């Protein structure tokens, strides 16, 4: 009798509490991200191993900064939490991730090229961090990217021209980095119906050039100026020396005339 009640009670409990789903990919993704990030101010309240195993219950998320959809992590927003450390490449295991926002922290290290596996990523915001290295061209494989925001970091190297192939890209900001080289025409001078990005998306990069940035100001003089100065100074010196010779001649002429005058005075009249 007791066993039956126990069975019925446990069945009722099973039915009453909707099962929370665990996805092994999401678990691996969160575990590795939790290890690569450092949280000195203890801002990530419940980022513990037990929560990683079961972060989602349908649409409810037990994990701070994570939003769930159908039991999978679909949005991660960990902005302005004084986080340090780096972005783990295993973040790519969160394959249902549609929005990643790690902005306004102190993250270092590169943007992992493994993020190419996030095939559902639509929004990538890593702005205002201390990320270095180059922008991985593999990001172009995240075909649904609408927003790439990497401003205010220490990124170097060129802007990959493959990023211009992202047909849904409507917001692009790499300002205030250390990028160099030409702005790819596929991004700066887009054709057709694709939205164009103006210079504010690219400025603050010392060695970055090309449309739509204004042309670089020369530090030294241009060739024309140098030639002009050379010719001008040559001409001026010619004129000066000519004038000098003229004056000297005139001077000696007068002296000679004066001397002749003296001699004629001294000479008696015959």
């Amino acid at each position, binding site marked *: 009798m007791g066993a039956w009640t126990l069975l019925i009670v446990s069945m009722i409990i099973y039915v009453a509490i909707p099962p929370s789903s665990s996805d092994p990919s999401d678990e691996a993704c969160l575990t590795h991200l939790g290890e690569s990030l450092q949280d000195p101010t203890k801002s990530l309240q419940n980022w513990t191993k037990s929560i990683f195993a079961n972060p989602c219950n349908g649409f409810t998320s037990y994990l701070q900064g994570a939003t769930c*959809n159908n039991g999978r992590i679909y949005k991660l927003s960990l902005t302005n939490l004084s986080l340090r450390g780096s972005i783990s490449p295993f973040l790519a295991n969160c394959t249902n991730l549609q929005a990643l926002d790690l902005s306004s922290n102190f993250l270092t290290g590169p943007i992992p090229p493994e993020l190419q596996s996030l*095939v559902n990523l639509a929004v990538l915001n890593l702005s205002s961090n201390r990320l270095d290295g180059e922008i991985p*061209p593999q990001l172009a494989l995240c075909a*649904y990217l609408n927003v790439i925001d990497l401003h205010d970091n220490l990124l170097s190297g060129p802007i990959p021209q493959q990023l211009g192939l992202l047909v849904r890209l409507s917001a692009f900001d790499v300002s205030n980095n250390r990028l160099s080289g030409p702005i790819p025409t596929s991004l700066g001078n887009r054709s057709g119906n694709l939205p164009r990005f103006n210079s504010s998306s690219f400025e603050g990069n010392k060695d970055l050039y090309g449309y739509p940035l204004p042309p670089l100001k020369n530090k030294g003089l241009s060739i024309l100026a140098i030639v002009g100065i050379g010719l001008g100074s040559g001409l001026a010196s010619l004129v000066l020396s000519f004038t000098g010779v003229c004056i000297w001649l005139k001077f000696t002429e007068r002296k000679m005339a004066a001397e002749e005058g003296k001699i004629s005075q001294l000479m008696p009249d015959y």
Partner: protein
Amino acid sequence: MLWNSMEATSLRGSIYQLRELVSPCMICFEACGISRGMKMRKQVFSFFYILGFLWVFWVSDLVKVTGNSEGDALNALKTNLLDPNNVLQSWDPTLVNPCTWFNITCNGDNSVTRVDLGNANLSGQLVSQLGQLANLQYLELYGNNISGKIPEELGNLTNLVSLDLYLNGLTGSIPDTLGNLKKLRFLRLNNNSLSGTIPVSLTTITSLQVLDLSHNRLTGHIPVNGSFALFTPISFADNPLNGRRVSQHLPADVDIKGRV
């Protein structure tokens, strides 16, 4: 104006009560020596009688307008659903408003803002009267066995923020009136038997954050403009869209030519 039996009996009762109130006045008239003839008295009496009648008439009408239209709408839903778990037991239509009913939330003006009936083992069909809940923000009917069509009157719920009808047995097409829900953030119709095409009007809802139409029988092509630019194949999976089953297939605008 339709009167149900309950209202008729209450009105009758009020008229009897009014008569009782007026008869002391009659005595008063006689006592005060107002005897301008029986005709005058009768006229006065009839006047008050009519006035009282109109007053009761008007008040009951007023009560109907302010309190019960939302309760009537929800009651219509209740009568159209099968409720083996008695989740709707507290839904009493004789109350002045539905704000005390379980699974119903109201705002400060006693107008319904939330209907929370997820995973309630309900079956039956939805009703068009749901469109009368003008201040409704959350319609949570997921995880039931509700069949029939999505009423196009749901497009009148202009304050709706979340529409969750997923995991049911709904059929028919997605009404394009849903494009009028300009504050909608979550639209989850996944895991039903919906057919037809995805209405393009949905792309005009700029507030849309989460869209899930997966696991249905939708056909036609996937819109990619407006708010739909943010949505990836997950939102449309397991439908015979684009002429073939969509799993990780890329929509028309995205191709993988010339990749790294």
